[in-house]
């Protein structure tokens, strides 16, 4: 039984809890709005293209699209600085693009080609970039939470002020190692932001069917970790919450939990028909709260021309189309790569 609440995500975000952000988030400058728009559009167009390529058989295996959730990673990234680390689960294409990884390398990894970030040996769920401090790309639900805590541990060990951001979903939030990590992170005051991307479904199971405590910002309460519910469809709200969490962590106060209330428009993976929710539910979120439309509308209201916005979309489409082209023409890895990178 799909017992998904029919209320809007934004309404959920506005729930009157002590931990939720009250009122409207601080305004973005025009430059910030344009940057957010471009980053979110890049992710959306990239994911749409990945979906197409999957349908054509160019991408195999599992492919989890991030469409609908773009504001979360873009807003978070706007609060980070060079050297901060990012780690996530398997719905990771958006995170990689937001970290500044090249669309070509990501798309070529999806098609299993030698120009992919992992030389074609990792695939959709396993990409990394030492250069961009992106630590994957992990296929075991919840594993990235302990690993991300370890990244924060390394920051504390080295005595720097970098922050680690560990993303996971409402489903992963029920894994045991998440709480083992919470305990150590608070005990040792590790600079880690736990970003729970609550998109309301763990594969096909709605939050209400899987979670005794549905307010994920409270999941750190028994470890004294502060948490906040955030409208994850509004990039400004995400950025504001991220600023607060980053400041907390950099000041050495320990971990911080951000529950991002968001929504994925597509199925869990490409092979998921998403029968557990109604078409109307998806359409309503798309119509009322789309993170990209929100920014577009604000920019139009602020006097930016439709023409200028179309130019942003065109620029992004060009990058994505080029990446699709590259990813389909780049050769597969040399057969000798079968036996490389097992040991170093």
């Amino acid at each position: 039984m799909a017992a998904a609440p029919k209320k809007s995500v934004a309404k959920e975000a506005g729930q009157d809890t002590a931990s939720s952000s009250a009122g409207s988030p601080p305004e973005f400058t025009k430059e910030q709005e344009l940057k957010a728009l471009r980053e979110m559009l890049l992710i959306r167009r990239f994911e749409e293209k990945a979906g197409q390529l999957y349908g054509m058989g160019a991408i195999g295996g599992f492919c989890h699209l991030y469409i609908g959730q773009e504001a979360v990673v873009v807003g978070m990234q706007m609060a980070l600085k060079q050297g901060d680390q990012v780690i996530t689960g398997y719905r990771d294409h958006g995170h990689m693009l937001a970290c500044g990884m090249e669309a070509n390398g990501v798309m070529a990894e999806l098609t299993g080609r030698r120009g992919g970030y992992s030389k074609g040996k990792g695939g959709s769920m396993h990409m990394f970039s030492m250069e961009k401090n992106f630590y994957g790309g992990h296929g075991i639900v919840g594993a990235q939470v302990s690993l991300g805590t370890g990244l924060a541990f390394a920051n504390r060990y080295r005595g720097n002020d970098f922050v680690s951001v560990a993303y996971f979903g409402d489903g992963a939030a029920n894994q045991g190692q998440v709480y083992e990590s919470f305990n150590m992170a608070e005990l040792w005051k590790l600079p880690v932001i736990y970003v729970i991307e609550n998109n309301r479904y763990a594969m096909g199971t709605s939050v209400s069917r899987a979670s005794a405590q549905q307010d994920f910002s409270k999941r750190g309460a028994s470890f004294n970790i502060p948490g906040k519910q955030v409208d994850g469809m509004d990039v400004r709200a995400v950025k504001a919450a991220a600023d607060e969490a980053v400041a907390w962590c950099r000041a050495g106060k320990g971990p911080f939990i951000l529950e991002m209330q968001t929504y994925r428009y597509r199925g869990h993976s490409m092979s998921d028909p998403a029968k557990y929710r109604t078409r109307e539910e998806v359409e309503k979120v798309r119509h009322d709260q789309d993170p990209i439309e929100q920014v577009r509308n604000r920019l139009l209201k602020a006097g930016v021309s439709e023409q200028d916005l179309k130019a942003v979309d065109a620029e992004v489409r060009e990058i994505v189309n080029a990446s699709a082209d590259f990813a389909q023409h780049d050769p597969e890895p040399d057969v000798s790569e079968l036996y490389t990178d097992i040991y170093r």
Partner: protein
Amino acid sequence: MPIQVLMPALSPTMEKGNLAKWLKKEGETIKSGDVIAEIETDKATMEVEATDEGTLGKILIPEGTADVAVNTPIATILSDGESAADLAKAPAPAAPKQEAAPAAEAKSETKAEAPAAAPAAPAAVAAPDPEIPAGTEMVTQTIREALRDAMAEEMRRDGDVFIMGEEVAEYQGAYKITQGLLQEFGARRVIDTPITEHGFAGVGVGAAMTGLKPIVEFMTFNFAMQAIDQIINSAAKTLYMSGGQMGCSIVFRGPNGAAARVAAQHSQDYAAWYSQIPGLKVIAPYSAADYKGLLKAAIRDPNPVIFLENEVLYGHSGEVPVGDFVVPIGKARVARSGKDVTIVSWAMGMSYALKAADELAKEGIEAEVVDLRTIRPMDTETIIASVKKTGRAVTVEEGWQQSGVGAEVAARIMEHAFDYLDAPVARVSGKDVPMPYAANLEKLALPSVAEVVAAAKAVAYR
């Protein structure tokens, strides 16, 4: 009749201890619960409480005596109405070993196992290592000390090396392997974790991904079952999944396999499990020198390494080279030369193999004993060279037979030396049962010297 107080066994693997101090004098009255003596084990100093009331009649083992075997009478207690004259009535000191529980109980903060007559563990006798140049200065050390020194030396050498695990810091190690490390390196680098194997294994791997070099101690590898996802899916596979970009220099170490009388959930050998995984290196040493040299190599290795120790061996001593002694990973060692049959073993299995070789020699069969030391990568070359010489092979392991390391060794011999074999390879292993608790059944479940001897004779058609 006067009651004898026997030397108590204060841990599952304790065979002997030092009588550090008597807290009661002869003639003093003793009430049940009084602390009468302090005993030093290789792990800790423990108090011995009286369980009987009376007068301390005679101290049989003076304080300061070292290496007093478990179950040796250390004192007699006179009951009411008895006098020193009754002491003669006490049984002779050569009391039957397993009769009558000792009249004293150990008391410690954590472990207070009932005194157990642990089966006599074999001594770690290792032949001189041909890799150690003649004239190298040697020191006699317990394996416990060799492990500690290996870690301390590597931590002095490289500031990125740190150790984390349960009780590694303030408690000085559940098995006292990390003794003194907190004092030398401080709480930043010697880190007590909560009891949270899955979580701290992940934290260690995450830290390693940034270039730090953690040593993650599991109190035993049985508990690492909770962490095996992080070990295999995160530590072992990331280098490959990242196309060589991101690796993981990390050592997972701790006691593995059967200890003594700790039953099914604390007695499993994981060598075969981890040895299946590409991306991991798996080390299981036997000699004290190898324990030190291979742990140092493991810490320096840029890959994830599983370092399997044996609790029974911790207290055993051997010759260890002084100074920066590093043993290469992936090299087996011919521990004993012979021409008639090859015995391939590693870790605790070596004790059976070496004893069996002694027995076989008495019957005119010269066994060559190969100590694998590293399970993955396996030194096939050394095994094959030996089998080509002897034409016969026996594998010895405490782990289970199905899909075991011995099965792998046998398959490699079949693949690379089939035409040299004069008999099928024989496997001696732990029996195909969960480890039983009862002393007699436990003994049966483990390999024995007699089984190794019988297997060697069978393949030699003798």
